[in-house]
């Protein structure tokens, strides 16, 4: 008898392992500057997470340029280069198939910051309203 599928389960170990491998490979490709798209030449990109579909045929890659600006443009530029990236990833990844890469802006930081803002709104107001006692300054440094 076939096992009953639990569709609410999180990603399996293999999904997580392949996703992390792809995240690592893409980070290394970006570090080596192996893409030659002029739109990506002047930007440092981090890969926050790669989520694999259950059958491992699709990898959703969450990317963010350093500082977080123009995340959408960067993900679109990467999508334009996905053929080359897919080739480079498959070469490094020791698996028989070649997952399709889909690039999306990594919104984790934004979402966390927004949640944080909402949770702390009253506390922030209260804290800012009260005067500080004298705040000592650090030792003088030429750059401070």
């Amino acid at each position, binding site marked *: 008898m076939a096992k009953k599928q639990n569709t609410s389960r999180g990603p399996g170990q293999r999904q997580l392992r392949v996703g992390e491998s792809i995240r690592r490979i893409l*980070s290394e490709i970006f*570090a*080596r500057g192996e893409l030659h798209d002029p739109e990506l030449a002047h930007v440092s990109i981090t890969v926050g997470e790669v989520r694999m579909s259950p059958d491992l045929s699709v990898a959703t890659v969450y990317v963010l340029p*350093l500082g977080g600006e123009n995340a959408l443009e960067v993900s679109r530029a990467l999508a334009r280069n996905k053929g080359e990236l897919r080739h480079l990833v498959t070469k490094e990844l020791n698996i028989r198939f070649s997952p399709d890469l889909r690039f999306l802006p990594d919104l984790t930081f934004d979402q966390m910051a927004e949640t944080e803002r909402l949770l702390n709104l009253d506390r922030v107001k*209260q804290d800012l309203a009260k005067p*500080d006692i004298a705040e000592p300054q*650090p030792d003088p440094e*030429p*750059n401070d």
Partner: protein
Amino acid sequence: MTERRLTLTSARHQPFNYLVSLKVGSTFLRNLTYVLDHGKPYSQQEADYPKSLHSRALTREELMREVSFFVVRDPVSRFFSLYFDKVVGTPENRFEFITEKLRTHRIFHEGPELTLEQHRENCMSLLGFLGVRLRRNNGQKINPHWSQQISRLGAAVEFGLKPLMLEKLEPQLLQIAEGRIEGLEAAMGMVKSRNRSPRPVEIEDVLTPKVYNKIVTLYPADIQLYDLVKTGWEVLGHPPDIKL
């Protein structure tokens, strides 16, 4: 038009310049620079320390000819350094203005033998305090002990400074120096230990997903920056080219 210059801490007689970032190895570098200048470690009796340290305003071209760098640190490790040193550290190191604020408006457990849970609560309390300070928009300067490392990256990138990692500072510094700093290795040996804050407990024992997520929320770009520098060094074997 005058060429733009960046003022950095420098050795007096050697081509050695760095951008100071507090809680990112600044005491180690200050002590190292002192040894490069004086040939011996400083002692507490020397009244002119650290004012005797030298600074120079240099152009990008000059900086790129010399050994010029900045250091990045994992934001989690940097946060705990602040906590262990300035919040629950020795009275001479502690920032009373922080503990006073935590005591009055938040939570602050004190004493020589705090439990892990009390440390965790203190950390969340401190992170709440930092969140307020980092969001200030009334023109007040953010304290450099907890300001975002990325806030000074613009200058570092513009002037071509090389990014190094705190945990691999010594070998990476020797690598980029390429023999241009006389006595660098010996000077590192003379700076006996880094300024490591005494730790009553291990970071790994205090760090919970809640504390980690809060640090990520406050320092998202620093997490990215650290990741880029770390991956860059690991992949390339030399300082990566950071683009901002």
